[in-house]
């Protein structure tokens, strides 16, 4: 299998990472250790999330809301077997906040917002901007690494998957507006 095939065939793991982050955000206030020795960070899905089934032409559900993961539409899509195709992540560490739209298949970032720059001189600000971008990429890499430790371990994954399934099954049914008899 050449590299191009491997990239395509493993892209689903990025969607599973985003779905797992949603789960963690719901269940443990989004506190996740990215494994860089600096403690847990806070991760949440904000503003928008898109869920889709696998394969070209799959149905897609896009939700825009302050907390899109709490909407009935997003939860129903997950219950139907869709996974998070892309999501706007909010990441906080030491009171500094980053936001980025993350595409699951490639873990590509767009629409990035970094914390406010603290330095004044133009050269220093340019360097600080690059450092903050590095930090974001490092955090994404750390989150994926933390996820893969669980995902690739059969015992750990069996337990985690059971917990995620219970979470999905525990979503409230959407309000259809029907008046009960």
């Amino acid at each position: 299998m050449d590299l191009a095939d491997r990239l395509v065939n493993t892209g689903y793991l990025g969607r599973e990472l985003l779905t797992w982050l949603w789960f963690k955000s719901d269940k443990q206030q989004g506190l996740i250790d990215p494994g860089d020795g600096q403690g847990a960070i806070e991760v949440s899905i904000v503003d928008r999330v898109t869920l889709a089934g696998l394969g070209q032409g799959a149905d897609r559900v896009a939700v825009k809301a302050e907390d899109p993961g709490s909407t009935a539409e997003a939860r129903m899509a997950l219950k139907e077997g869709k996974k998070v195709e892309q999501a706007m992540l909010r990441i906080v560490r030491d009171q500094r906040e980053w936001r980025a739209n993350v595409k699951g298949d490639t873990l590509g970032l767009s629409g990035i917002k970094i914390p406010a720059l603290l330095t004044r001189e133009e050269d220093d600000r340019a360097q600080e901007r690059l450092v903050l971008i590095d930090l974001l990429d490092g955090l994404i890499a750390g989150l994926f690494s933390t996820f893969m430790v669980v995902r690739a371990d059969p015992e750990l994954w069996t337990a985690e998957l059971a917990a995620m399934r219970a979470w999905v099954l525990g979503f409230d049914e959407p309000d259809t507006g029907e008046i009960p008899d």
Partner: protein
Amino acid sequence: MGAFHGNLTYSLYFVLDEPEAGFRERFIESLRTHAFRDVDVEAGKDRSLGWTVMGDPFDVDLTWERVFFDPYVVVSLREDTIKVPPNALKAHLQKRERELLKASGKERLDKGERTALKADVLDQLRRRALPDIRSYDVVWHTVEGTLRLWSTNKRLKELFEDHVEKTWGLRIVPAAPYTYVMRRAKADEEAAMLGLDPADFTGASGGDA
């Protein structure tokens, strides 16, 4: 879109090779060899691609002091394209054809004459046209081994990957779930990853995966 200002959307790559000893000197020499040059219209080209100083598409005076922003290497990739609007080509072609027919007394040009005429008209118009200039920032973290291109355009990314290899002989791979694992260079982790199947978060399949 730029590394130091503006929108933050880029394509991330991992550099697989460690720079060799003496890389710095060869690096600048190679950077200058593959610096941007104007479109060679004389040779029938309609585009050109090459490196410039970051932020200035007309500055190709690439020196270590101007590209090294410790620990980053910062440059821009400039692409010029000469496009002749189809309507302009058609109008000029018709005008030249009329002139040729009048001068020769012929009623029509044969296929070979039309082909040659079109090539000549296109060449003339390209010489008169201003190129479309696009410039994209590139930042290489020489310690972390990451490389960022400030564009997500698929066509440009392919050109960029090719130009990086030509310039520095470095192997780069796009950041993706697989390459995040690949760059850790642990064969067992890669193998484990390739052996996984998509998970079912609903339990509908009845399995443990």
